[in-house]
């Protein structure tokens, strides 16, 4: 093993090729992951950020906010279900906003949320006619202090603060009080109108120690099946496009890992050819195939670790350089780690291809000139 380590240090040029290509593959893996996470975040971050355990929709809504209605009576019922600690209403309206200073066709897509229980990193609901805006809307001029006109009815809403990383269906979000939201939706989307006290869904916090899934079942029983309660995570996965995007990208990532296995196998096979003579001598001196192969695996792991670090560096650089909102791209630490891990496993598997050749090297070849 020590010999393998010394070879890495003293003959780094031998390993440059494999490292470079693996670094490219590492970058690709992390890039793919970052694009997937970006797309997902754009679709779902507003829902994922809800500080609650459950979301309650009406049972015919198929988990869609727009088609769901929860009446005040149903809300009271839900609040009284054992295990429920707190209930807050929530609803969304997807509209186009006119921003002062922008052209008449240059509208900003916004998803206006009316809420009671504040999600992560969002202050409590603001006053009437006011809203917090997601930072991704700043590109369109929607920022603190500006009054925008929302929807065909041009409902005025004044921006009083900024929030970050909260999107819904690729649209930047506005966060307003329930009343503001109701007024806006009734004025602009009459066929989606809501009566007083009505919400599209409820955010539910369960008592500490209670099992959210059982509470969800209890809620649906309590409302005689009129509601469909699910965990926030399940609600996120039900947002249109999410499961398709995930499946698509995961397939691509999977094939990329397989490619990494083959590429490592290829370049380490080439390396092994170069070292036939050396391995012959070492075997003559008493090295077992196991020792030599362990050295190969060690080198594979080190090379992959370096390649992963380089790949991560490039992926991070891209994260900094890409302006927010242009391409959906979010580099999560978990993604960097799993990508590096996949690559490492791929490298170990790739090294196995060299095992046969290492096994076949005859120690007797060391005698007789080492040709």
């Amino acid at each position, binding site marked *: 093993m*020590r*010999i393998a380590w*010394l*070879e890495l240090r*003293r*003959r780094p040029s031998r390993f440059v090729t494999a490292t470079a290509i693996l670094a490219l593959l590492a970058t690709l893996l992390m890039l793919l992951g970052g694009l997937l996470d970006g797309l997902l975040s754009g679709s779902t971050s507003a829902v994922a950020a809800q500080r609650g355990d459950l979301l309650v929709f009406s049972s015919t809504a198929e988990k869609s906010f727009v088609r769901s209605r929860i009446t005040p009576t149903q809300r009271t019922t839900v609040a009284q279900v054992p295990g429920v600690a707190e209930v807050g209403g929530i609803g969304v309206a997807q509209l186009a906003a006119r921003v002062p200073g922008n052209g008449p066709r240059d509208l900003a897509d916004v998803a206006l949320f009316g809420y009671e229980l504040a999600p992560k990193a969002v202050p409590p609901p603001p006053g009437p006619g006011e809203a917090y805006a997601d930072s991704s809307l700043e590109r369109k001029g929607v920022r603190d202090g500006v009054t925008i006109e929302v929807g065909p009815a041009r409902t005025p809403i004044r921006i009083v603060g900024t929030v970050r990383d909260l999107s819904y269906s690729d649209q930047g979000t506005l966060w307003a009080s329930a009343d503001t939201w109701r007024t806006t939706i009734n004025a602009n989307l009459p066929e989606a109108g809501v009566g007083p006290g009505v919400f599209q869904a409820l955010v539910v916090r369960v008592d500490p120690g209670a099992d959210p899934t059982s509470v969800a079942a209890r809620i649906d029983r309590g409302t005689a099946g009129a509601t469909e309660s699910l965990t926030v995570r399940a609600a996120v996965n039900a947002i249109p496009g999410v499961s398709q995007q995930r499946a698509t990208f995961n397939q691509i990532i999977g094939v990329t890992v397989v490619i990494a296995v083959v590429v490592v196998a290829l370049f380490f096979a080439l390396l092994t050819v170069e070292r036939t*003579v*050396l391995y*012959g*001598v*070492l*075997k*003559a*001196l*008493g*090295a*077992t195939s196991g*020792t030599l192969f362990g050295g190969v695996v060690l080198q594979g792991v080190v090379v992959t670790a370096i390649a992963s670090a380089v790949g991560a560096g490039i992926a991070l650089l891209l994260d900094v350089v890409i302006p927010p909102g242009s391409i959906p791209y979010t580099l999560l630490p978990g993604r960097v780690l799993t990508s590096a891990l996949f690559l490492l496993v791929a490298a170990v598997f790739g090294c196995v291809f060299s095992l046969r050749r290492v096994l076949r090297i005859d*120690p*007797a070849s*060391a*005698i*007789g*000139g*080492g040709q």
Partner: protein
Amino acid sequence: MTTASKDGRWPAGPALEMEGVRKVYEMGDEEVVALDHVTLRVGAEEIVALLGPSGSGKTTLCSIAGGLLTPTAGSVVVGGQDITGYSAKRLATFRQETVGFVFQSVNLVPFLTARENLLVVDQLGRRTGRMARDRADQLLDELGLADRRDNLPSQLSGGQRQRAAIGRALMNEPQLVLFDEPTSALDTELGEQVMELIRSEMTSRGTAAVVVTHDERIVHYTDRTVHIVDGVLHA
């Protein structure tokens, strides 16, 4: 005679006993007999020259003696150990502990220093750490390479490389050291220097050696010469 060897480590039986050793290769339908009923005995402190032209089988004999090849027939006993039926794995351990090799050309690992080259065998096997490092330094000193121990093989002269290889062969205090054409890459003067070194190192430690060569000039450095032609030994 059962006296102990000079370093007291091994019983003083013969270092090498080969009886009726045959090595046959199958090439397609034909059989090639590389060694034909070879019987050879090398004493505990003897230096034997194995002289023969290329293709005579001397390399094959050397390989079998060193546990690099298994014979088709016959028995091989090295330092009292019968290695005839050893598996590849046991042979590897045997080579780590009991034999030393000095190859003709590729001896040293090109990216390791002289000192590290000597430590290779220890790292592959017993891992005695400190003990091995001390022994390596001592050997390098005796071989006149003390000031070259942190040099890579590319930074050493031909003679210095040969000396480092001898040092490595002696690291595990072997019963038997096998030299494969030790002077073929050197000029006459250097070749004689190396043979003198081999002789003095082997005799001072009481280690047996077999020197495989085609060069008649060096046989006077050995105790006994054995000729081999077409796989058959002649005294």
